């Protein structure tokens, strides 16, 4: 995917907002992902050209941070918290997601609606078990409210 002039401009603005441009690398990659759902190798290379750094430098960062994705997933991203307080409930949620939505960790549902990732503590332990769908966290999740929650995402 090509960045295009709007995204390029946005990245240049980010670069200008730090005292050193490279500080904007991670925010820039997040901006690409917000637009396209992932950062593929073509986009990564264009980002490296904008920053005047090697593509390997970008790759190094892309492969380190868990929120950055390199391939497009479903229309909505589900992060299922599997850390200690959520872990018991997460197993049950995982089972429902597998059975009802054919979702496996790291995979995408056949209808392209959801991608599922296991993640560590979402910082909502008082609402365990918690899940994040796109940019909001929900909890406590049980079978009943899981369906009604996910039905809201088309």
């Amino acid at each position, binding site marked *: 995917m090509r960045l295009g002039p709007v995204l390029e401009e946005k990245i240049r603005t980010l670069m200008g907002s730090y005292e050193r441009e490279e500080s904007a690398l991670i925010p820039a990659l997040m901006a690409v992902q917000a637009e396209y759902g992932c950062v593929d190798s073509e986009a990564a290379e264009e980002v490296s050209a904008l920053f005047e750094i090697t593509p390997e430098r970008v790759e190094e960062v892309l492969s*380190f941070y*868990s929120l950055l994705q390199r391939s497009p997933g479903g229309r909505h991203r589900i992060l299922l918290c599997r850390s*200690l307080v959520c872990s018991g409930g997460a197993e049950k949620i995982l089972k429902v997601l597998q059975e009802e939505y054919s979702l496996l960790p790291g995979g995408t549902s056949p209808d392209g609606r959801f991608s599922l990732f296991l993640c560590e*503590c979402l910082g909502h*332990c008082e609402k365990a078990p918690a899940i994040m769908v796109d940019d909001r*966290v929900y909890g406590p999740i049980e079978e009943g409210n899981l369906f009604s929650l996910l039905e809201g995402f088309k």
Partner: protein
Amino acid sequence: MNDRIFEPLLNAEKGETLEGYVRQGGYASLRKALEMSPGDIVEEVKNSNLRGRGGAGFPTGQKWTFLPPPDGKARYLVANADEGEPGTFKDRYILTRVPHLLLEGMIITAYALGLTKGYIFLRGEYTQGREMVERAIAEAADAGFLGKNILESAFSFDVALHSGAGAYICGEETALLESLEGKRGHPRLKPPFPASSGLYGRPTLINNVETLACIPSIVLEGGFWFASLGSQKNGGTRLFALSGRVLKPGLYELPLGTNLKELIFTHGGGIPKNRRLKGVIPGGLSAPILTAEECDIPLDFDSLARAGSMLGSGAVMVFDEEDSILRILSSTVEFYFHESCGQCTPCRDGTNILKKLMERILSEAGREEDYRALVSVARGIRGRTICPFGDAVSMAVEAMAIKYEEEILGFLGGNHG
């Protein structure tokens, strides 16, 4: 005088807006601070016995004095809002409900130490916090609390929000700085410490969100007042994030030194269905677990350190008799395996071996040797890594394995489930 710092602010109507915050007395402390000498503010913070709320519990006033005197060049303040320690959600409440309290704390801190620019390093998953903090920064700038010549004084300071992209290790302050410089979050070898060589090689102070949010009340009411709220050498109240097997999980502001049982049974409503307490992790996942017998203990940094654990991030996770130690241990091992940054061999390979041993312990093939190996590998990581992550894995895993040895060996003996 009120003996709670956060409670009224967190529950105030529209407390997340500038208007709501000012209605609660917000930014009065900044006005007072700007009429004080920077040295007097540092003195108040020292008197307050405030200790770092991120996890290490280091005296904040002392940490502040590690910065060299201003030399006219850039010096940075970073608010560590990379809250990721399992069980911890206190900073989220500050960020979403009273973001101006953090900003006011940052501005006063910057004035006291001659810092020129502030960053809030926010974990990427806290999208709601990002919206609130971004709006608060804009509001504060409009009102003259941020920017050039703050409140018509000679002091200028700006704050920018920086969102992370998902990595627990970035809560470690030098990993955070690497990430803020656009690199992988690999902790730096210390010394030099960030106070002398931090962001872009310049003097940098990194404080946790809750720590910075304590500063306005210390300046307004005095360091000794703040100290009097807590216990000896443990000034102030603390935001305890209570979760797990309690009837009322949530955030509780209590004086440092409050008994752990009081938190669980009085404030938290006790354990559902009167089941038996099994154990408590008192300060985030990295704090070694306490057995039910060890839970009659004051929640302060020193008491927990004496008990071989730590107050850490103030995240209290409660387990009862229905929680299997195997699940607790396995979730813990998975966490550290997933979040090890991979820089140091003992930690990278050690967490991988722990994960494999744990998988075998959970399988039919598990034997006592695997349990012994787990304890030995956990111990072997300690003291052999660049950052405290290795020690955290080591101590957390060892405590779970040793304190619940009987249950684990019983499971291995074939009493599965």
